[in-house]
């Protein structure tokens, strides 16, 4: 099978994505990007927007323009004309950032990985319940569509639920959420480890629960979650983020997938250098969990 073209690794796709983010594409170029499978990657658009936001000299929107926009939107202008005044693009001091309605609970997500490592081909990964050993090539993963580090600001009036509480909420809210038990591999860190992963495909939200997973020293290594998606090339699992396990070996952490996961084939946890990696050598796979086939 021919692997799908990966937007981040294809120079032509990158060229087109940069063009789209800066000067725009001709219809032919847009069609070419679509045919190459790169049209969904918005990471360059976000980067250009970030440059814009960071460098644009701020001006206030003229009131007459604002009133015209409100009229076009069918909204009634505020009595007295001018809109409530805030600095352009800047929120009132002290306000707390919260999630969009319907979004997942504001628990602490898995941290994004920081470091890149060279591509290393390798093989043989445990595939959990089926106990199937599959030779998996490894290559740079696809560029996330839009990935940013999130800044968590506690809500002023409400305490965010713990990951354990959020996990329970998810199970209560989504009857279709999957609960998949972990299967330990032969790696010493996973010996005796139990627990499960709860995953809601509809909400793209999930939680890992471990009991007995070996504590890690974050200065030496961290655990990293990978999500294999049946709709993606198996060489490009979705990076699920890094996490740590404390001395008691018990932890519940929220999954922070960097890409939408259409259909889970396997969850796998590896041991990686601090901050995680872009490309895993898969030398230390600790636990896996897979849906029943």
């Amino acid at each position, binding site marked *: 099978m021919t692997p799908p073209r990966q937007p*981040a690794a294809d120079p032509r796709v*990158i060229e087109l994505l940069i063009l789209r*983010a*800066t*000067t*725009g594409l*001709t219809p032919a170029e847009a069609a070419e990007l679509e045919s190459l499978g790169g049209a969904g990657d918005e*990471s*360059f*658009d*976000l*980067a*250009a*927007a*970030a*440059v*814009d*936001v*960071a*460098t*644009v*000299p701020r001006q*206030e*929107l003229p009131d007459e*323009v604002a009133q*015209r*926009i*409100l009229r*076009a*939107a069918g*909204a009634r*202008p*505020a009595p007295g004309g001018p*809109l*409530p*005044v*805030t600095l*352009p*693009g*800047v*929120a009132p*001091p*002290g306000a*707390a*950032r*919260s999630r*969009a*309605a319907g*979004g997942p609970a504001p628990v602490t997500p898995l941290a*994004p*990985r920081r*470091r*890149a490592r060279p591509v290393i081909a390798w093989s043989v990964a445990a595939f959990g319940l089926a106990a199937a050993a599959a030779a998996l090539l490894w290559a*740079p993963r696809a*560029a996330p569509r*839009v*990935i*940013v*580090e*999130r800044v968590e600001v506690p809500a002023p009036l409400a305490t965010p639920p713990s990951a354990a509480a959020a996990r329970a909420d998810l199970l209560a809210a989504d009857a279709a959420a999957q609960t998949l038990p972990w299967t330990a591999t032969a790696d010493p860190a996973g010996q005796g480890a139990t627990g499960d992963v709860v995953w809601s495909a509809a909400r793209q939200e999930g939680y890992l629960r471990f009991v007995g997973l070996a504590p890690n020293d974050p200065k030496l290594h961290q655990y990293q979650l990978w999500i294999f998606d049946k709709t993606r090339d198996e060489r490009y699992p979705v990076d699920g983020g890094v996490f740590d396990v404390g001395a008691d070996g018990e932890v519940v952490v929220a999954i922070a997938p960097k890409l939408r996961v259409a259909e889970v084939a396997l969850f796998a946890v590896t041991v990686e250098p601090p901050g995680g990696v872009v490309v895993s050598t898969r030398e230390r796979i600790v636990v896996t969990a897979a849906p029943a086939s």
Partner: protein
Amino acid sequence: MVPVASSALASPPVLARIAAGEPEAIRECLARYGGLVWSIARRFDPLDAEDAVQEVFLDLWKSAARFDARLASEPAFVAMVARRRLIDRRRSRGRRPTLEGGELPSVADDALDPHTCAEAAQAARALAQLRPEQRQVLVLSACHGMSHSEIAERTGLPLGTVKAHARRGLLSVRSALLGVQQEEHP
């Protein structure tokens, strides 16, 4: 976590309320982001800003439901929507970029604004690592919509240098947003 010391990051999202049909949210969105969109539009095409901003906000009302706080901050999403409209308008009109005042912009370190959103903070840090001419080329390309040949013509830099600066600059910012070391591509 991104060490951004700004109250702007603590802004409650308004787009979800627009998507839910809350009328007051439209005015609140305009109050919050009107200046940002206006500023971006004025820089991108000062002769077309008024009509463009109106179209941007109409786009924003329509696409509010697409906003996902897990994928981007609200200011960054708004800026993306604005830029798409501005780029489309310019292309459809076949207009060349216009530099207000006719002077090439320079972006000094102290002109970088890291306070609006996490992405701006990361971009500001990445831009601070670029040489002044690299930063200028990136801003001319990404924020003024100038083609590489137009930038080469205006700056006197060789076309190949302009292409390299624009490409590496945007890759640097993207890598900063993705939290990875810059990837090298041929």
